[in-house]
Each structure stands twice: as structure tokens, then as C-alpha cells.
């Protein structure tokens, strides 16, 4: 049995270096050379400054922008490090609400959001993704229905024709991969950038 101690130490260290250091560093090198944009986090720059990542949702509150889904991410409370406070779209601390189907807090929050959206656009049924928080709190997408739902508000705030805004939504709608995988979606940041390009603030 004592004979097993040498391989236990040496093989462990050697395999640890291969799988824990050589492998990730090699992948980092190759990825940086072949797919530099993705490897760095699909960052979007405007006037030389990073304005976000194409894959990471960000918070939009203004009436002039399409809003993403509610986000349940938090950050440490500046007054008490043991507690957390809500911080939507905190891309350094991802997470969901983790509230279950019979949670009063969850269902009250949903009801409140539903009432607000009903007031904003009474003419369309409310898409469920607009009133539910995503798993990561960083969902970059909304459903095409959720984008169309917001068109009247945007058009009014920007003084644009509704059809023009609707056309932008259609342009930015991505279908399923190969027509099969996933769900149709609209990247909110990409849509809002297109919106800014079409009708400067």
C-alpha cells in the first residue's frame, strides 16, 4: 500500500499542472488568437469607450429606450457588508430571484408590474418575460412580443412613427438557430443602439 503514495503525490501534481494550468492557458492563447472578440467578452465600444457587452443585459429605465426584463441581482449593502441590496443587472454578481411559485413576494411583485404595463399599453396582452426575472439577472434578450409591446411608448417618447420603431424591432429580431434551437429573441442593447442611430436623442 505504501507503494501507492508516490504516484498519489506525483501523478496528482503532474495531472494538476496539465489540466489546471497547461490546458486553460493553451485554450486562452488559441482563443485569443482565433476568436479575440469573443474571448474578451464580446465588448461593444463607442467613441473608444466600452459601453457594455453584446451578451450582457444592462438596465434601461428611460422611456426612450426599450426595457429589458426585471433583474434580481444584488450587491453588498454599503452600510452593512453582511446584507445585500437590489442592484439590477449587476454583471459582477449574477443570480435569480429564487422565489418559488407560491411566494407571496414574487406574486405581489409580478402583479404590480402587470398593473404598470397595463396602464402603459392596454391594447396588447402582456408578454410573460417582461414581468418575470431572468435566471442570471443579466438576460440580454426579450421576446419579440415584449419588444413590440413597448413600441407605442418609445414612438411617443422619441416622436417617431410607430411603424418605423416596429421595423427596427423586426430588423433586430433573431430567429431560432437553424430554425429549431432556442427561442426567437431581440437583443435589447443592440435594439437600443439601432434606435439611437435611427433617431438621435
Amino acid at each position, binding site marked *: 500500500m505504501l507503494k501507492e503514495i508516490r504516484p498519489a503525490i506525483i501523478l496528482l501534481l503532474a495531472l494538476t499542472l*496539465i*489540466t489546471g494550468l497547461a490546458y486553460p492557458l493553451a485554450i486562452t492563447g488559441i482563443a485569443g488568437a482565433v476568436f479575440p472578440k469573443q474571448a474578451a467578452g464580446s465588448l461593444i465600444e463607442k467613441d473608444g469607450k466600452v459601453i457594455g457587452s453584446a451578451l450582457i443585459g444592462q438596465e434601461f429605465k428611460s422611456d426612450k429606450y426599450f426595457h429589458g426584463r426585471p433583474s434580481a441581482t444584488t450587491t453588498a449593502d454599503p452600510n452593512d457588508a453582511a446584507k445585500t441590496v437590489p442592484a439590477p443587472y449587476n454583471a459582477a*454578481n449574477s443570480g435569480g430571484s429564487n422565489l418559488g*411559485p407560491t411566494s407571496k413576494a414574487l406574486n405581489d411583485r409580478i402583479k404590480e408590474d402587470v398593473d404598470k404595463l397595463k396602464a402603459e399599453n392596454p391594447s396588447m396582452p402582456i408578454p410573460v418575460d417582461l414581468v418575470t*426575472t431572468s435566471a442570471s439577472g*443579466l438576460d440580454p434578450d426579450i421576446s419579440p412580443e415584449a419588444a413590440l409591446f413597448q413600441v407605442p411608448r418609445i414612438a411617443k417618447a422619441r416622436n417617431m412613427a410607430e411603424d418605423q420603431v416596429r421595423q427596427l424591432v423586426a430588423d433586430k429580431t433573431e430567429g431560432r438557430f437553424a430554425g429549431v434551437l432556442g427561442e426567437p429573441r431581440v437583443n435589447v442593447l443592440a435594439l437600443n443602439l439601432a434606435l439611437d442611430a435611427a433617431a438621435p436623442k
Partner: protein
Amino acid sequence: MTVIGWIQIILFCVIVVALVKPLGGYMTRVFAGERTLLSPVLRPVEAGLYWIGGVDENREQHWLTYTVGMLLFHVGGFLIIYALMRLQAFLPFNPAGQSAVAEDLSFNTAISFITNTNWQNYGGESTLSYLVQMLGLMHQNFLSAATGIALAVALIRGFARSSMRTIGNFWVDVTRATLYVLLPICVVAALFLVWQGMPQTLGPYVDATTLEGAKQTIAVGPVASQVAIKMLGTNGGGFFNANAAHPFENPTALSNLLQMLLIFILGAAMTNVFGRMVGNQRQGWAILTVMGVLFVAGVIITYWAEASGTSTLQALGLTGGNMEGKEVRFGIAASSLFAVVTTAASCGAVNAMHDSFTALGGMIPLINMQLGEIIVGGVGAGLYGMLLFVVLAIFVAGLMVGRTPEYVGKKIEAREVKMAMLAILVLPLMYLGWTAVAVVLPSAVASMANAGPHGFTEVLYAFTSATGNNGSAFAGLSGNTFFYNLTLACSMFVGRFFMIVPAMAMAGSLAGKKSIPPSAGTFPTTGGLFVGLVVGVILIIGGLTFFPALALGPIVEHLAMNGGALF
């Protein structure tokens, strides 16, 4: 439920089944020490490792030596992770300036990774340096998975051999599993994932100024290399807190499909390895069919429950299912499928928050884990877990007809059945026992995020996931407390090693027996009757063990939800 949703699910199943045979053939050759396509590149590395490690690759081990080697290997792995976490502040590759991790959390995480659980009481991007993620966690992602494969191969040798004292060499098996099976697939998968948008950088977190002028710090890191092995090795520990729901950790529907395939392919292919090594591939297909029946039943229930949504959502006129805690790019179908896949295997990665699933939708992942994650299962672990149930089913069949039961040419006798029962019974002891303790301790109850039956389910899920070495969570539960760090670590340890050691003892005893040719009285183990019998035994044993606990959690919650009760 939609047609396109079902097409996605069927597509996934078809690809898995198509990969079983080629991959099974390749792995069989690897563990028999035969030349493969990759030998010209990898053979020198392999030989070099044996040379520095002082391993004679032709010397085989008794089951006890094999097991001791495996345990020593894990002690070392534990020490590496624990030390790295405690010392991370002084070590390189720490651009976010993470400070030392607390003792109890380090202990929990180290146990969690050597047992292939990857329970996340830590929040990846907010707690760990890149060095800990790579050198600490990732190496165990590889090695705990390689260990699982090695153990399964050793158990299969027990069935396949006749009158032998040895079951293989642990060091050779674990090295071959790492070099020939895990690494090559991971290299290809990691690059594919980067192409799909997954970051792979050692650079610091990025500060962005959003369109509305707010500051957003975006965590990045060497994500893709870790995600590839996290899935392939059914480890499941996320680089980020939100795991495979994080857009960086699962950017597209295509990356999602690849990740689900990575979770399943090795476990599914192991059934073929089994068939080939015992000399009849149909034996492997029969086992895969048992797994398939249970899997498809789980997918149907979860998909139906999530697509139906909750009664409160319906009352508000919100159609489109339960999207709380799910991502738009995956939708209901791919999120439901992922949840069943990740708990059928012992992966534990999540692309949606299980805590926010409907009561019945969340119950299926729980049941999958309570059955012992034998539906495909963890790499290796799934197969040896399933073989324990097979032994039991064969034993029951033997009792019914009054003959000594045999399986693939081996007589199943008292010792095998005792070992199988020991392994199967120790699991509920952990998850039911600790859940019972937790729900009467006020400090443990305070960790629940949800009130009512859902809170109970959170605790039950945590201990079930830890015992099953799964690692997924009803993540609302604040597990990073002294009580949970220690008790969950205990569950993970017992769940892993108290299953492995009896399985290895069984391997040793089987290898020593003579193989007997099938006779007219042999119960055929490749047909529908056998499949039905095993499924029945699994469900009866499982049902008797955990149905009462489920009744207190998800079942009562479902009834409460339909009655309009909120907590």
C-alpha cells in the same frame, strides 16, 4: 408545450444515442490499452507520467489497493484546493483582488470538488481568483471525473473477468481517462464555446458605461476552458454564480445544446463500454433503455409543468409558461430539458433557477437525484450506481423463480447484494437525516428564502443534491453558513465514498468468481422484461424511501398553489 419544443428535445436524444456506439468503442480501446487515433501524440505523455510517478502500467491491483490509491489521490486533491483557497490573496492570477476564503467555506468547496459535486456555496465571480478557478477547481473537474470513469471500468472488469484477483491499475485508468477521453473532447468543446461567445481571458473585470450612463462592472475570465470540463465531467460548478444561465457561460441556444450533450455523452457511452467488455453490446443497450424510459418520463412531466405555468400567472392572463428564473434565449423547452438532463446525470449545472420552477417541475430534478442519479448519471458513477440496482433487480427476479440469480455470467450472491444494499441505503440516510435535523434547528431554518412547503423543499433539495454529488440547488437557500457548510460537506463525502467502496468491494468479489455460460434457466438480461423489472425495482425502492418527504414538499405545494395559497 409546442411542437418546436418537442423537436428540440427529440433532436437531443437522437444525437446522444448516435454517439453512444462510436464513443463506447473508443473508450473500450483506451482502457484495454490498445492504440487509438490519438496515441501518437498522447502515448509519450502517458509514458512520461508513469515514469515520473513510478507506475508499472502492467502491474494490476487488488480491489483494496485500487481503492486505497483512489482515496489517497483524493486526499491530495483536497489539500490542494483547500490551500489555494485559503492563500489566494497571496497568489497570482487574481486581478479582482479576492481575499482569502473562510475556513468552513473552503472546507465545503474542497470536499465538494473532490467528490464531483461542485456545490456552490461560493459565488464564482465574487469569491474566487482565476488561479483558484483553474488550478484548484478545474483540475478536480478533470480528476474527479476521471476517477468516476476509472471506477466504473474497474467494476465492469469485475463482471467481465473470470477467477482473477485484480481489477486493473487505478493510476493507469485515471491517467488514460484524463489524457485520452477528457482532455481531447474538452479542447474541441472549449474552442467551440469561445466561438459561440464565451469569454476566455485572464484580463481583469471590465468597467463599462452603459447607454444610460450608469457604471457596469462586467466579470469575465477563463470561462470556456472550465465550462467544457464542467459539463463533460458532470461536475457542474459554474464559473459564475448563475452558472449556465449566465449569458457568458451559455451564450446561445447552440452552446446550450452542446453543453447538454457534453453532460450526457460519456455516461451514455459507458453503457456501451459495459456491453463490449462483458462481450454483448445488447447488455449495454438494455441498461441504456432503462435509463431512457426514466429520462423521457421526467422530461414530459417537467416540460408540461413549466409550460403550464403557475395558477397565479394564469390568473393574471400571462401565457407562455413559467418564465421566472428562465432566460429568453432558451425558453421553456430548453430550460426544462436542461433541468432534467443535469439532475439525471450528476452534473448540477443549471441554465434556469430550479428554485423558481413550479412545484411539480422542480420535483422531477429532485426525484432524479434521489433515485441516485442513475439515469445516465455522473461519468462512471451513473453506471456503477445503475449496476447496483441491476444486481438488486436480478436478486429479486432470482427470489421469484427460486434460482441463484446470475448476471452476465456471474452468480449474484449474498456478498454482492449486501454491498448493493449498503450503497443504496446510505444515500437516504444522509439526505433524509440531515433534512430532518435542519428543519428543527432555528438557525438552519433561517437560511430558507421561501416560506411554506417551498422552504422545506429548498432544504431537502440541498441535502439530496449534496448526497447525490449533483451540485444543483434551490439556490435561494443561504447555504454559506457554518451548519450547512459542514453538514453538506458530510453528505457529499458519504454520498461519494460510501457508494464507491462497496461498489469496489463488489468488483473484487465478482472478479474472483468463475464466469458461467448462460443456460436454459438463465434470466435473459437484454429484453423488455428485464428493462421493466429494473425500472420497477428503481421506482419501488425510490418511492418507498422518499415519497413521504416529497409529500411534505413539492406535492403539498402543488396542491396549495392550485388552492390559491401564497406564503
